[in-house]
Structures are given as structure tokens and as C-alpha cells.
């Protein structure tokens, strides 16, 4: 039996969904995008073009819920189906769009450069517990205006795994789409076997900005999956009660699914988010708060009740260094996400809310993820009878270590961590240098990076990606891109 976490009663699920639909009508959804407003009006919503508020009848949103796919897959660059959005499949990718990287030597945050993100992408490739890449760092050695597409450019040069990404502008989305098309050969191939997902973030409460709305519409038209990242901040930009924050999340996501399906029926879209329980002392958005985890898991339950693929930002920490708080917050969130059956859990490596990425935290999180994935595989009988034959044969001998039964099952039943996790005796630990988790993680990063296998990308394709990216950079005053750190 697979363990499953449900925080909401059936009655509460029903009421939250009902209130979500109500909010779409009154007060309605603010949509700062002309195309979306027109789509909504044409579909029967009452649209005030002056105030840019759409009052969406439940029937319109219900229709969208009928045309959205309940599942879809992502493909790696070898064309293999590796990520499954839908059902209770649980997968993990690194937290996205960090504006700093934790320096491995100084343990201080600094601005990321090209080489930092390339190292990050390579590291993600080598970590078996991670199912997808993300455009995790925003590099400062290129103009801000191309910060989004430049990440994708770098990642595409070094990755095999599919990628969770997003655009910061309307025009850059097109450049990013062109890169993805270049990778797989055609727009048709990209729609049939998507290699990327675009995050689209409504602003709380109940607002679709022009940029994110357009990204979602454009993605829908090209069959590129969108991932809704609704982020009610309980007690600040949403009501403070957890259930009410989930109501707001429901309304924002319902409006997103509706606009997406109106743009293109059947376009893949994910019920996701990055909510937080507002910190009532610091005025911050803690990702490691238990309230945050609960909102995430509850909205996941709502998404599943509506038959949607799901996503959540979990497994992060608000700590500024890789310390005890970092470990406990990241573990709590990742375990909860796994138990809730979130299809894509974003956040590995991320700290200081959602602003900093750390290579060392990433390899520690990989162990948390490994343990979480083991947990939800649950406990199986394995043999029938479960133990009788074996235990009656051995009697009272404590000789299980020598049994073929042990050799057969131990690595399937037990999660075997890397040396990041220390389970040696005191003396063994001292003999290996009395290293802290941080130091062991440093070793692990180096060990993994040494195993990186170059991505299957031709020189012609590299050149094409470079041309596409350079063309975009030139619009913003950069004639030549920083050199690609190729070995």
C-alpha cells in the first residue's frame, strides 16, 4: 500500500472548489492582457475592458476542465519519455531562477556567472534522484533583458534531462521557443514530445499580468506545457486561514486553466504553485514553514480532485547557510510533497526563501529525495509467505546477513545513501577527517561532476543555439555572448 497524505476532508474539498468557482464570478479575475480578455469575453465571461476584470461563469471554467489533458509526458534529449505529469507519480527538479549562488569556498552568496550555471546543469545531470533540470540560476554576465533565455541557452548545451523553465518577458518567450524547436527539429516535434515546461505565475490576489498571461497563451498555441505557479501569501496577499488561501489558489488556477484552454483546447497545463504562510514577525515568505507545506499539499489534493497534473514548490529552506534549519525544513517539505503525490516538486538546492541556489545543498537534498521516494514506494509483502519459510529455516540463528534472500532484496527494500549521509562509528568518522555534512557535500559535488557525460548535441546545433541567443542579446547591447565553458 502506498502511503498517501490527504489534509482535506471530502466535504472541505468540495466547498473549496465551490468557493473557487464563486470567486471567478465575484469579484472576478483581473486580466491585464488584451488577448485573454477577448478570449474570455468570446467564451461568455462578463468582461469589463476598462477595469480589465473578467467575471467568469462556472460553466466556462468547467468546459476548460473537460478539455485539459489529465496527464502528459516530458522527454529527454535522447527522445525518451522520462517525466510523467499525472496520477500520483512524484518527481523532483531544482528550484528555479535563483538570483544568487552559494559560493562553495566562502559559503557566501554571490551573483551567478555563466560558469556557475553550467556547473549546476552538469551536476543536475549526474544526480540520479533528480528527474528534470530547471533554469535554476540567473546569470549576471549578460544583460538583464535576456536573463531568462540565456539560462535556457546554457542548459540546452549541457543537458539531457527535460527542463522546467520560464520567461521574464513577452518577447523573450519567442526566442526560447525557437531554441526548443531547434533542439527537437520542428514545432510539431516539440508539441508531440515536449522537452520543456514554462512556469506561469499569476499575482495574488486574482491577477494575470500581461507578461505571464501572454506566455501561457503562446505556450498553449504551440502545445508547450505550462505550469501554474499560484502563490497566495497567507495573511498578506490572501486570507490567513490555510483553507482560505487554498480557495484563492483554486480560483487563480481555475482562471489559468480557462484562459489556457480558450487559447488552445487540449494544451497541457499543470495545477501548481508556490504559496507561503506569511511570517508575522519578519514579514517574509517562508518556504520552510509548516503552514506553507500544508497549503501546498492541500491545493495538490484540490488539483487531483479536478483531475489535474500537479506541481509544488517544496523542499526548500529559509536558512542562509547549509545548517540544521536547512536540513529540517528541506526534509519536511520534500517528504510532505512525496506523500501528497505532487507530480513535480521544484525546490531542490534552493535556500534563503527562493533566492539562492547551492550545489552542496542540492546533493544533500538528493538524499532527502531518495528517502522520500523510498517512503512512498511503501511496504510490500515481497514473498508469500512473507517471512515464515525463511524464519522457520533459520530458527533462532541471527544469520540473515549471509542469506541469499538478503542479497536479493536489500537494495530494493533499503534506501542506500551516498557518503553525504554519515553512518559510520565515531572513529570511522574521525578517520575520514571528522567532516560535517557541508564538507561531505563538497566532496560529493566534486565526485559527481567528475562523472558528467557530455550532452548529445552536435556542433551545428550548438552554433544554431548560439546564433539565436546572440541575435536576442544584440537587441540589448551585447554583441557577443560570454564564451561557453566547454572542456
Amino acid at each position: 500500500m502506498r502511503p498517501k497524505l490527504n489534509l482535506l476532508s471530502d466535504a472541505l474539498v468540495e466547498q473549496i472548489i465551490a468557493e473557487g468557482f464563486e470567486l471567478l464570478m465575484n469579484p472576478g479575475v483581473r486580466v491585464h492582457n488584451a488577448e485573454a480578455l477577448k478570449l474570455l469575453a468570446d467564451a461568455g465571461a462578463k468582461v469589463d475592458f476598462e477595469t480589465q476584470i473578467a467575471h467568469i461563469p462556472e460553466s466556462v471554467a468547467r468546459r476548460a476542465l473537460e478539455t485539459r489533458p489529465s496527464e502528459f509526458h516530458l522527454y529527454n534529449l535522447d527522445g525518451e519519455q522520462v517525466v510523467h505529469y499525472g496520477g500520483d507519480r512524484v518527481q523532483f527538479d531544482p528550484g528555479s531562477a535563483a538570483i544568487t549562488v552559494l559560493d562553495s569556498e566562502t559559503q557566501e552568496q554571490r551573483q551567478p556567472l555563466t560558469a556557475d550555471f553550467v556547473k549546476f546543469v552538469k551536476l543536475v545531470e549526474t544526480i540520479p534522484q533528480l528527474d528534470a533540470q530547471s533554469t535554476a540560476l540567473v546569470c549576471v554576465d549578460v544583460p538583464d533583458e535576456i536573463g531568462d533565455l540565456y539560462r535556457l541557452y546554457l542548459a540546452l548545451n549541457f543537458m539531457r534531462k527535460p527542463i522546467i523553465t520560464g520567461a521574464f518577458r513577452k518577447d523573450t518567450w519567442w526566442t526560447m521557443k525557437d531554441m526548443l524547436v531547434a533542439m527537437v527539429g520542428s514545432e510539431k516535434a516539440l508539441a508531440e514530445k515536449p522537452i520543456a515546461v514554462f512556469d506561469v505565475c499569476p499575482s495574488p490576489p486574482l491577477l494575470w499580468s500581461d507578461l505571464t498571461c501572454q506566455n501561457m497563451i503562446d505556450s498553449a498555441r504551440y502545445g508547450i506545457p505550462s505550469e501554474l505557479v499560484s502563490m497566495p501569501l497567507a495573511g498578506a496577499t490572501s486570507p490567513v486561514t490555510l483553507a482560505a488561501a487554498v480557495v484563492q489558489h483554486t480560483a487563480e488556477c481555475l482562471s489559468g486553466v480557462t484562459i489556457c484552454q480558450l487559447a488552445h483546447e487540449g494544451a497541457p497545463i499543470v495545477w501548481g504553485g508556490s504559496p507561503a504562510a506569511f511570517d508575522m514577525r519578519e514579514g517574509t515568505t517562508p518556504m520552510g514553514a509548516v503552514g506553507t507545506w500544508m497549503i501546498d499539499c492541500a491545493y495538490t489534493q484540490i488539483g487531483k480532485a479536478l483531475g489535474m497534473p500537479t506541481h509544488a514548490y517544496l523542499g526548500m529552506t529559509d536558512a542562509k547557510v547549509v545548517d540544521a534549519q536547512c536540513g529540517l525544513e528541506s526534509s519536511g517539505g520534500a517528504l510532505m510533497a512525496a506523500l501528497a503525490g505532487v507530480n513535480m516538486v521544484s525546490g531542490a538546492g534552493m535556500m534563503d526563501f527562493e533566492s539562492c541556489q547551492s550545489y552542496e545543498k542540492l546533493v544533500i537534498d538528493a538524499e532527502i529525495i531518495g528517502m522520500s521516494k523510498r517512503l512512498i514506494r511503501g511496504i510490500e509483502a515481497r514473498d508469500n509467505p512473507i517471512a515464515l519459510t525463511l524464519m522457520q529455516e533459520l530458527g533462532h540463528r541471527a544469520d540473515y546477513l549471509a542469506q541469499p534472500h538478503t542479497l536479493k532484496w536489500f537494495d530494493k527494500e533499503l534506501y542506500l545513501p551516498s557518503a553525504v549521509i554519515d553512518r559510520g562509528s565515531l572513529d570511522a568518522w574521525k578517520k575520514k577527517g571528522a567532516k560535517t555534512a557541508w564538507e561531505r557535500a563538497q566532496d560529493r559535488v566534486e565526485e559527481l561532476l567528475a562523472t558528467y557525460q557530455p550532452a548529445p548535441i552536435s556542433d551545428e546545433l550548438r552554433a544554431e543555439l548560439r546564433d539565436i541567443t546572440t541575435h536576442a542579446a544584440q537587441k540589448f547591447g551585447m554583441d557577443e555572448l560570454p564564451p561557453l565553458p566547454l572542456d
Partner: protein
Amino acid sequence: MSSELLNKITISIVEGRPDETVDLTRQALVDGLEPLTIIDEGLTVGMNIVGDKFQTCEYYLPHLIIAASGMKQAMEILEPELQSRQQEAESAGVVVIGSVAGDIHEIGKSLVGTMMSASGFQVHDLGVDVPTEVFIAKVKETGADILGLSALLTTTMTVQRQVIRELEEAGIRDQVKVVIGGAPISQEWANTIGADGYAEDAVGSVELAKQLVV
């Protein structure tokens, strides 16, 4: 042909298929291979690979044990052959091992015994809760090079010191190297009680034993 068969024996040890190791060993004898050749160029090569894989974290304890089991079963076939040729497998040394009086924990001790045995030591495993005088008598009887004392409890680790004292009283302390192990045991404790060595795990204990008998 013979090198191919020896290679298969090595692989059967490394991949943990004791039954196959036994069959191949019998086959090798039928083919006229010398028992010592089978040991040195087949079985031992496999055990060394297994030890290396354990230390690089590719292998885990069950792999070690199953490989050692294959080695042991093959040796049971080869011993009579060696005797009939009036040969001996090159012994790395004689080891007496057991858990000290009052301590009934077996797993760690047996693991060390198994690994030492698979590494060419002649191992006399006295079991658990072994009275001190039984250790002393066995060391005298076998002329052991190494005495391994296991204790898992902080309440029984002091018995390790007692055994060393009684070896001294019996006048044979300088004839045998005493190595200790167990969860609460450390190098510091080994120093405190005058033991000759301490190892962290089963693979480490084999290394230690090899160093001590040189």
C-alpha cells in the same frame, strides 16, 4: 582455456554466485588445474575485487558475505586436494576470534571471521559469550598469530582488557597480537587497554591483520 575458467571463477565470486563457484572449481580440478592455482589466480583475485568494490561503496555487506561464502565452499573442495598433494594453501596466519564473556552479539564478529577466512587466514571462531580461559586455551593450542575480541556493549568492553591481562599472566601475551572490535570500541580504547590494533569494519580488520602478521 584454463585462464578462461579461472576468470569465470573470479567472476562467480565477484557477482556472488556460490553454487557456480563450486561447480567451476570442480570443473577446474577435472581439467587438471592445480588447487593452488585455482586459489591464487581464481578465488583470491575475486575476493580482492570484492574488497575493492566494498571500499569504493559499490558493494555492501551482503555482497561481501555471499562472496566469502563462495570462497569458503570452494575451499572445502580444495582442502582435501591440497592435503593429498601434501600442499598447503598459503596461510596468511592463524586467527582465534570470538565475542567476549557476557556478550552474545554475533554479527560483527562473524563478519570479521568470514572476511579473514576468505582472505586466507585460518580462522577459529569460538562463537559468543566465550569464557576468557577458553580464549587462552585456544591461543595456546593453535599457536594463533592473532586473537580477535569482539564486544558490542560498554559493559562487556572491559572484558577485552581482562583477556589481555590474563594473556600476560599466562606468559603468552608477546606471542599473539590482540585486535579488538565492536560498536563502542575505538582506537583510543585499544591504546588504553594495550591491544595491538583496532579496525573500523570487516574489510579494515583484514588489512589490520595482514599488517600485524608481517
